């Protein structure tokens, strides 16, 4: 008897009509299954186990004989069916006789049943009650803040080492981060702040025109941009641009075990990776914000000129009178703090990343969210402090 050869699943034709399953209950204890024809991939393949279960009672059954002498072709779908049959037989202590199956098929069934399925505790993903959920979220938020503060502490330690001239990092890394997050960010920072300046002037001009106080649009744009919109918009752009990039870079390094390699070589990753980024952003943020302020005011001036027909000279004179040096310094101080937040959220999430590809994406997302939330809340705190101090 020529033994039938396995056929590839993907190339298998539809189930031919001669594929048949016959189940005969010989007596209380024994049953035969006859399979004939081509048992290859098809959604119409007869269900052997269901057919056996149509001949109850199973409890009395002692022996099942599989007659495969008429089998012409088979593939793993038949093996999968027979594996289920074998499991059924094992459960009911029934002897399964498969001697007429081709050797390959018998080996595959043996191989598939050789290792018992691992008993695994399925992690229950049950729904949490409302109070539990609130509690879980609160502890998570608290832990996240604690992580951030701890990370800030480690950064300050690294900074201390740097001040004593003992920090290890490469200057070329520092300059590269400065290049990418300074000059290379100018176009997008410029565009966004120009538009924001225009929007502020536009909204303000509509209100101010009613009182004939068009000239005060310079005060509005100047103070609005220098104290709030310039630092905040720039920080949000960098949170999206820089923070995400840092998280992805460090997350990928975590996946490749590069960060572990630094640790084992005795090079603190905080000094080598985080420190140059902190220094670069603390240096670059005020410059970027200064640039953003100027562009934002210019955007406002353009609206004043075109819509309110205020000359640029007049606008400038009014602006100089309205915006004090304190306003400028207040904005720049704030921007430095934003810079630190951007670096820390990016680096923290990157270092925390798990070792998988999806973790890198999650780290980047989380970095941006963390960054923006901290930026806005810090901005609110600054507003209170400045008002209290009368600045």
């Amino acid at each position: 008897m020529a033994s039938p050869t396995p056929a590839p699943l993907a190339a298998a034709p539809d189930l031919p009509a001669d594929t048949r399953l016959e189940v005969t209950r010989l007596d209380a204890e024994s049953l035969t299954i006859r399979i004939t024809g081509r048992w290859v991939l098809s959604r119409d393949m007869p269900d052997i186990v269901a057919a056996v279960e149509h001949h109850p009672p199973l409890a009395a059954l002692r022996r099942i004989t599989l007659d495969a002498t008429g089998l012409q072709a088979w593939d793993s779908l038949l093996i999968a069916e027979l594996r289920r049959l074998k499991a059924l037989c094992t459960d009911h202590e029934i002897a399964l006789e498969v001697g007429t199956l081709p050797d390959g098929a018998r080996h595959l069934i043996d191989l598939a049943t050789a290792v018992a399925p691992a008993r695994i505790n399925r992690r229950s993903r049950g729904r949490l009650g409302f109070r539990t959920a609130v509690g879980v979220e609160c502890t998570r938020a608290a832990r996240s803040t604690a992580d951030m503060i701890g990370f800030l502490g480690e950064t300050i330690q690294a900074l201390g080492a740097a001040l004593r001239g003992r920090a290890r990092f490469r200057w070329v890394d520092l300059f590269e981060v400065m290049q990418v997050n300074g000059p290379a960010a100018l176009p997008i920072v410029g565009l966004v702040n120009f538009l924001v300046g225009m929007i502020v002037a536009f909204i303000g001009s509509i209100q101010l025109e009613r009182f004939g106080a068009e000239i005060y649009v310079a005060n509005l744009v100047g103070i609005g941009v220098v104290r709030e919109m310039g630092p905040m918009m720039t920080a949000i752009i960098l949170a999206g641009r820089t923070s995400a990039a840092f998280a992805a870079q460090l997350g990928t390094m975590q996946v490749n075990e590069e960060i572990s390699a630094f640790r084992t070589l005795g090079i603190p990753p905080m000094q080598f990776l985080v420190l140059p980024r902190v220094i670069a952003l603390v240096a670059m943020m005020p410059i970027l914000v200064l640039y953003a302020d100027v562009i934002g005011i210019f955007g406002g001036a353009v609206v004043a000129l075109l819509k309110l027909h205020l000359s640029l000279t007049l606008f400038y004179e009014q602006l100089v009178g309205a915006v004090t040096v304190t306003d400028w310094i207040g904005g720049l101080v704030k921007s430095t703090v934003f810079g630190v937040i951007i670096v820390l959220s990016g680096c923290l999430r990157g270092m925390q990343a798990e070792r998988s590809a999806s973790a890198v994406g999650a780290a980047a997302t989380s970095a941006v969210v963390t960054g923006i939330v901290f930026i806005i809340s810090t901005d609110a705190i600054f507003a209170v402090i400045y008002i209290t101090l009368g600045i």
Partner: protein
Amino acid sequence: MQADATTRIHPRCDLAPSGGDPHIEVSDLTMAFGDNVLQHDLNFTVERGDIFIIMGGSGSGKSTLLNHLLGLLPPTRGKVIYAGRSLWDADEDERDSLLRRVGVLYQSGALWSSMTLEENIALPLGEYTDLTPRQIRELVQLKLALVGLAGFEDYFPSQISGGMRKRAGLARAIALDPEILFFDEPSAGLDPVSARRLDDLILQLRADLGATIVVVTHELESIFAIGNNSVFLDIEAKTQIARGDPRRLLEECDDPAVRSFLTRGREPAEPAR
């Protein structure tokens, strides 16, 4: 260096069997990146049912050759012929249908990290067959059981060990009962016992599924344990310098580069002066 297309370069040790049933034929294949020729004028035939080893030192272009065979990268020159049909002369649809009969186990498993093991294996079944969800689930369980991972259906690739990932990758590679199975460095990163088990599994699957198997490796143990045909890519000559059963090559081939490789450098490539 540029051989005329009509004159084939004959390897120094040619023990390749002749007159079989060719499953994959590679003819006059040249692989190059720009002007940098990696290998030129490769000619070899993988017979149906072979366990064919592509061997050679690091940097000899084994993995690039695999990419040419798998349809991932067009060769600079030459043909890859699957069962009489040229892979790179075929249009996209035909190439897809040729490659659907091919399963690949990548070096690190290459499981999709956002899917569970079950979803990894069910994806090709769902794409290319019209089986019912129950049948797909049964097939997934069978394939995982075959590689000894029954019960791990709901695990994500990041939650299991490297050796298990490799076996899960094999379960995905055999999801569609392929006619040809490619293995890229199957024993890399495995302990000796797991590597041996994987070799046994390869032999068993070849016997039971009747597949042709192509293995890219430089692991001598595996080469001698499972291979019955091979091609040796040499870095210096930039082409094949030996073909045939690796065990016979060890006995009969007197080329120093081949001997040095097959004896782990015990016999040096350059004879001592």
